[in-house]
């Protein structure tokens, strides 16, 4: 029996050689990805995962793990197996080129033309 300094552990009367069977696969359940919203109007942001046996408990663990300080109004949990992700090896699909300026507000500059027009047409 362990002669602990800790009265709580002493009460448990634990043997030092209390070997237990190893944890088997799925003992810790599957994982849920957690999305956290700080305040109304904000986007939900991915903050990490929890292991849980079902969505209700994933919400509970998600709240404990990611919402116990600061602002929180809402969380989502999604089974990791239900998330489809792009591949980092395909990151080149996001690459852009200077010609794509036509997608940007900054790609449209008209002041030179306006000034020139105003100068030439000063009556």
């Amino acid at each position, binding site marked *: 029996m*362990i002669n*602990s*300094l*800790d009265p*709580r*552990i002493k009460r*448990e009367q*634990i*043997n*030092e*050689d*209390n*070997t*237990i069977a*190893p*944890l*088997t*696969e*799925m*003992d*810790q*359940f*599957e*994982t849920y*990805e957690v999305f956290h919203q700080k305040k109304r109007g904000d986007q939900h942001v*991915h*903050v*990490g*995962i*929890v*292991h849980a*046996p*079902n969505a209700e*408990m994933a919400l509970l663990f998600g709240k*404990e*793990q990611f919402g*116990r*300080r600061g602002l929180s109004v809402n969380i989502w949990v999604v089974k*990791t*197996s239900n*998330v489809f*992700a792009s*591949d*980092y090896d395909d990151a080149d699909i996001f690459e852009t080129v200077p010609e794509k300026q036509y997608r940007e507000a900054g790609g449209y500059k008209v002041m030179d033309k306006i000034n020139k027009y105003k100068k030439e047409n000063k009556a």
Partner: protein
Amino acid sequence: MYGNAYIDPNEKANAMLAGEDPIKLAEFEARIARGEKIEPKDWMPKEYRKQLIRMIEQHGHSEIIGALPEGTWITRAPGFKRKLALMAKVQDEVGHAQLLYSAAETLGKSREDMINDLITGKSKYSNVFNYPAYTWADACIIAWLIDAGAIINQVANAKGSYGPYCRALDRICTEESFHLKYGHDNVVTLATGTPIQRKMVQEALTRWWPPIMHFFGPSDKISSHTEILMRWKVKMASNDDMRQQFLNMYVPKIWDLGLVIPDANLKKNEEIGKWDYTEPDWDEFKRVINGGGPCNAERLAVRRMAEEKGRWVRAALLRKDEKYVTPLA
């Protein structure tokens, strides 16, 4: 709360890169050199994966085991406010373990395997938790100075190269700052209190000083092995550098309270800006990390008991159609 992962100095560097695709290795190293993070599904050298799993896992175990000596003081903490604060701290530590286990999982080791390796004694955890918290003052010294050491280590590691570990550490460091303030507040209360309180906190400091000096681990041997780990941003600072940083930040704060650090050789060498101290007893460190400390057996036995008592609940909740996939990030 965590010191540095214990790296076996006898591991050979030349074996680290054996069999790696040179082109992929060069791309990987270039990415890290550019300051980019590595994400779970990226190609990585076997040794990078292995060292990170070992390090993050040990860190996770340290949080769980570290909660044990502190958790025992919740019911005996003086006053309602301190009981609440200590409960919050212990919950944080257990939460940190979950964040860290998740980060290690993304590298391919299941949480079940990590827990199994902890409870059979195969995996290590921070050596300081093999010592008992005899009095309330011990719990206060742990909360202040062990957490202070942990923050130094964790702030350094948060700048490492593995994305999931960095993200976990950023969250952890924010929470640890509360632990540090809470611990400091407690120590100041005792040190500025009655003669009995002062005596109690001095005795706790005397007891904890050697484990605190052990906390960052022995001097790193400058080996090509460590060099590679530093190039890969797995290891972010040498054990001695972190120990120096700790001494620099906290020795003056301890002296401010008129407490005596039990090392007559401890003084700052102003010429080189470093602290001189008596070399810690590394034989004692090795003896304790290998199972010979006052609480090793108790810590693991308590952990096994907890795991065993919860097993039927987990079994009852497990649905047949559940399927594990590795977390994304």
